[in-house]
């Protein structure tokens, strides 16, 4: 399935569905969110990434009303959100865990969540049927959750969050620890629902998915918004035209090779036999020069890749900067 973009969602008006204005959250001495502002439009699929401790969980908890904000404003749809007034069904949450009752069927689970959100009996039944159909599990609705495959459980988990047709859907690490097929199933579902007009926030460490599926990505670092743009625009802003260089040597580099390599400004992150760096000029010339340099030190290049830098490189560099 081709990844959807804002372009093919032209049918949806640009209406802000989530507005974060100057939000600050502090835990004791730690400022988890610092004057954070951004907005997400209806039908957008926005990824939220950042190194550990960047404030992702605090942001999600604040949007869900689980966390009191110190200042600022959060608006979902038409409603201001706070721990005291979160409206059931306004926000749908797909947590990392399978948040379902294992000994109930898929249908029974969804009916429970619909009823808990305040639906009447008939409406709960209807919403359940629609949600099951939208995740293509109608034929499995009478199966107990503990008898479903991992991918199916993920889909029911997703269905439980869209029952109420929420103004905002939050996917909090929805594919952590699942196989590639199940991961693709969930992401395809998210993309399809975004295409139909649902506003979705995706928090994930699967950065290739963010690049592939998200219209925009919010890069959080130290509680601040570092970047908020389309993934390719963020990468272009950060890395320009540089390409990512990775290679591995046969043996551990001796001190002299290590020193030469760093001095050459080709690599910035040696680790054992693996080297990463940026290739800012002609890739062929750079690779030839590395091969030559390594062989002069009685070593050899086992494997080398030169590719466009991804969000993973951005997060790594943010994490490194944080630890330094």
């Amino acid at each position: 399935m081709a990844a959807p973009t804002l372009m093919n969602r032209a049918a949806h008006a640009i209406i802000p569905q989530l507005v974060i204005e100057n939000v600050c959250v502090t835990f004791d001495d730690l400022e988890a969110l610092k004057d954070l502002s951004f907005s997400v439009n209806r039908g957008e699929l926005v990824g939220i990434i950042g190194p550990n401790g960047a404030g992702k969980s605090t942001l999600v908890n604040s949007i869900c009303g689980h966390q009191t904000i110190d200042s600022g404003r959060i608006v979902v749809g038409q409603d201001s959100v706070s721990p005291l007034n979160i409206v059931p069904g306004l926000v749908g949450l797909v947590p990392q865990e399978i948040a379902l009752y294992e000994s109930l069927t898929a249908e029974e689970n969804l009916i429970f969540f619909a009823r808990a959100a305040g639906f009447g009996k008939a409406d709960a039944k209807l919403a359940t049927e629609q949600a099951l159909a939208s995740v293509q599990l109608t034929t499995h609705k009478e199966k107990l959750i503990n008898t479903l495959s991992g991918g199916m459980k993920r889909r029911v988990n997703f269905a439980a969050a869209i029952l109420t047709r929420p103004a905002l859907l939050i996917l909090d690490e929805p594919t952590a620890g699942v196989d590639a097929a199940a991961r693709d199933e969930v992401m395809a579902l998210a993309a399809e629902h975004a295409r139909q007009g649902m506003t979705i926030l995706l928090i994930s460490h699967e950065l290739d998915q963010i690049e592939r599926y998200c219209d925009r990505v919010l890069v959080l670092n130290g509680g601040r918004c570092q970047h908020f743009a389309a993934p390719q625009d963020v990468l272009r802003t950060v890395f320009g035209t540089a390409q990512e260089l990775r290679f591995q040597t046969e043996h551990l580099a001796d001190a002299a090779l290590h020193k030469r390599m760093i001095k050459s400004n080709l690599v910035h992150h040696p680790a054992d036999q693996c080297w990463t760096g940026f290739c800012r000029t002609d890739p062929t010339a750079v690779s030839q020069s590395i091969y030559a340099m390594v062989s002069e030190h009685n070593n050899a290049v086992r494997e080398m890749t030169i590719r466009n830098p991804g969000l993973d490189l951005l997060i790594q560099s943010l994490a490194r900067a944080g630890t330094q």
Partner: protein
Amino acid sequence: MIRAMFMVMFRQLTRDKGSLLLTFALPPVIFTVLAAIFSNASSGDLDLSVAMATQSEAPVTLKVAEGLGNSEAFELLDFGDNAEGVFSAVKTGDADAGVIFLNDLADTQNAQINIVVEPSRDVASLVLAGAVQEQLAEHFPQKGLVETVESMRKMVGGFSPGQQARIDAALASLSGAEKTDTNAIIERVSALGDSGGPVLDPATTYYTGATAILFLLFSSMHSASILLTERAQRIPHRLFLKGWRTFKFSAGKFAFLTAQGTLQSLVIFAIAELLFDVPVLANLLLIILASGAMAACASGLALFVTSACQSEAQARTASTFLVLISSAVGGSMVPRFMMPDWLQSAGFLTPNAWAIETVYSILARGQGLRDLLPGFGILFGSGMVALLLATWISSAKLKKA
């Protein structure tokens, strides 16, 4: 490797306060409680409370009553000459047994002492009877001698006429009174009266309530562990629980556990009626109310304990300890009157004591709704308070997660 593994286990234990508590602090506590209960129960050194009424002003009767009153074996509740008060105190459990001195004990033809018995505390009445006999022997030594003579007669196969004459002369010289058997003076009467129905087995009746509350607590604790599964799976997060909705989330569980517990209790009561003639059907409405109140109490406590735990393993251990202690102190294992005073008082902090008292009051004492209201109120009320606490803890944990 062995040392390394040893150190891993050691560090895990020392850094886990819960495990440390369970390993080193709780066992001594439980040992202390159980030792206190069972040593008291088996030593015969019971802390009994005895209700007493004296309906005669005769000097001998007053002397015996005074002697009994001075006994350190009892806590004496003196009802003056009010025999009804003694019956009432024993019936309601305020006293373990009662004694009524009906007339002049010197009048050997008509002397009578009633020992008021509550069937579930029969041991107490036997101890009291022994103490009364001791007082009689002290104040009427010839009575003790008569009993000794009777025992010897049985052993030696009878006395010769000459021997019998010497014995009679000796007894006459002691008091000038006629021969008297102290056992004949003492009559045991039930505080519960004669219902006319089948004879009630006090132990079965007592343990009907005791068993019901014990298993209610166990099964409620087990069922309430779903709360921790939900928390681990972040279901409360998904439901965006807040305030009133958190209460409703807990209340749904409370309602189910109460219904389940009520049914479970009724099954035990039905078995008691069918197999042991415990009069359940005759008191069906009150028994249903009691089952509901006990189940509500157990459900609330189970939700409270579970909500305070971090994991299912912790909840399993904590609930097992709590149920065992509550059952031991509350009288589900050994009747509370056989425990030391301080444990008898502590028993009323447990649901077991209130449940046992309530059920026994219905089945054995035949008490009505008005008399049972305090018991119902405490059981149901404590369940509701525990439910509110569980909701509050769940809310706090949801915020922290």
